[in-house]
């Protein structure tokens, strides 16, 4: 039996009058990489963002249903959203380092969450090492983060998330703005980090989904059409829609 880390139950989400997610039930297993695939506008990013409550910012968003991290109800008012986001990290589509130095980017969240000052430099170094970035930046930690290349910036964003030791890392098309070599590095990184973390990744890239994920969920018009092991989705899709999508007939 798989150990379920993150789950949604009877999840419905509206933006104004438009229903974007329809009755979604999905469970993500611990230490696995799950990819969300589907054509643009199918709701995969919306689903991803509802797990770390990014929709709190849009007043027109309305959510029904249950989202759970382990046994914790994510939308229970008793749970602080900042603690939730510390446990469920997020990496965005475009690398978004803060307009600070590399070191400050790493230290920012550690200071917010009041980690002991003496431990911060060590935590930063090990997170950068785990993200394969330490060797490249160790001599220029006080440079502005935007001076890094796009791929380095994205690895910095991953390291910045990893440094908090979250339980889940959500990624919203993390490689769509990167070149193939940077993409390969990030995929390698995800495969290594999944030992410790649970990944949910939105991607438009079918090859990427096949390379990195244990399971794949195909979404269409706000619903999860099919959720299976990666091989099953790509070799023997049950639904015709899934078959057409993974073979590139639409999307």
């Amino acid at each position, binding site marked *: 039996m798989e150990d379920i880390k993150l789950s949604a139950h009877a999840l419905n989400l509206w933006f104004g009058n438009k229903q974007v997610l329809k009755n979604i039930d999905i469970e993500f297993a611990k230490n696995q990489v799950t990819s969300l695939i589907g054509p643009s506008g199918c709701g995969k990013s919306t689903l991803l963002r509802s797990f770390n409550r990014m929709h709190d910012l849009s007043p027109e968003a309305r959510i029904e249903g249950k989202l759970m991290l382990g046994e914790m109800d994510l939308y229970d008012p008793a749970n602080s959203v*900042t603690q939730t*986001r510390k446990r469920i990290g997020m990496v*965005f589509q475009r690398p*978004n380092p*803060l307009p600070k130095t590399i070191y400050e980017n790493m230290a920012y969240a550690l200071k*917010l969450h009041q980690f002991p000052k003496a431990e911060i430099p060590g935590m930063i170094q090990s997170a950068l090492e785990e993200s394969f970035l330490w060797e490249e930046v160790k001599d220029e930690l006080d440079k502005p983060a935007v001076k890094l290349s796009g791929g380095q910036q994205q690895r910095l964003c991953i390291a910045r998330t990893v440094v908090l030791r979250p339980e889940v890392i959500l990624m919203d098309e993390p490689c769509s703005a990167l070149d193939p070599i940077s993409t390969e590095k990030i995929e390698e990184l995800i495969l290594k980090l999944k030992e410790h973390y649970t990944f949910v990744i939105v991607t438009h890239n079918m090859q990427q989904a096949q390379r990195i994920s244990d399971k794949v969920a195909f979404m269409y018009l706000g619903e999860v059409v099919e959720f299976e092991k990666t091989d099953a989705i790509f070799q023997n899709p049950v639904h015709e829609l899934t078959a057409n999508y993974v073979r590139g007939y639409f999307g």
Partner: protein
Amino acid sequence: MSLKKRETTDRLLKVVFKATGLITIGLLGGIFFMLLYNSMAFFVRIDPIDFFTGSQWNPSAQGGYSIFPLLVSTALVAVGSMVIAIPLGILTAAYLSEFAPKKLQSWLKPAIEMLAAIPSVAIGFLGIVLVGPGIASLMGLQNGLNALNGSLLLAVMALPTIITISEDAIKGVPQTYREASLGLGANRWETLFQVTLPAALPGLIAAVMLGLGRALGETMTVLMATGNASALPHGFLDSIRTITATIAIEMGEVPYQTTHYFALFAIATVLFLITLVVNLLGEYFASRLRKFHS
């Protein structure tokens, strides 16, 4: 034929645009040269050391040509108004762009812009009949026409500038910065003070510099509402007279090409240099911060 025509237009427009650009520089240079030229005539007659270090501006008496009390007056109201207007302006701008509901925004913004449309003479009038007497009775003074009064009024006048430009700067901060910060578990206030406002800093500096420029250059309000005393002030509760007010009051009455006449050009040159330095400093800091943005 038509090709030739187009090329001629192209060349012509190049000249026109160059000319419009050069006019601004020409005007700036011309004004500066005029001020400097007339100031020279003053410094031939009066020792610059006395001009900066003396303690009296009293041209009708012998030797009373010191800019020092006027400079202190100008600095008092400029600093005083900025102490009030900068935090108020930036926080208002932050509230407007980050927290205010759309409905409130839609009437608050025009109201703030309307504030800028009030003529300075009307604000000066308010200072004489309302704010000044208010300060006097609150502080137990005989007369409320002082530097504090001027600071309050100038703060009101600088606010619309600071708010409008700060708000643009804050709105211009990419949403991705906010998402990055919130995604790491920062709350909205931490995000505002540690990410959004620092990222908007170049624009905020520009806003403050323009507000400060407004306060330094404002004439009518300070002339009416700060008591018109050219003695060296010792604090915010003393009456003062700024550089601008002095020029406005005395220029109309001074005999042409006397020492007094040239003295007014000299203090105008000093004011010009101050505002120039303020602007250059603002530009310097703004450009230093820009390197953190992609």
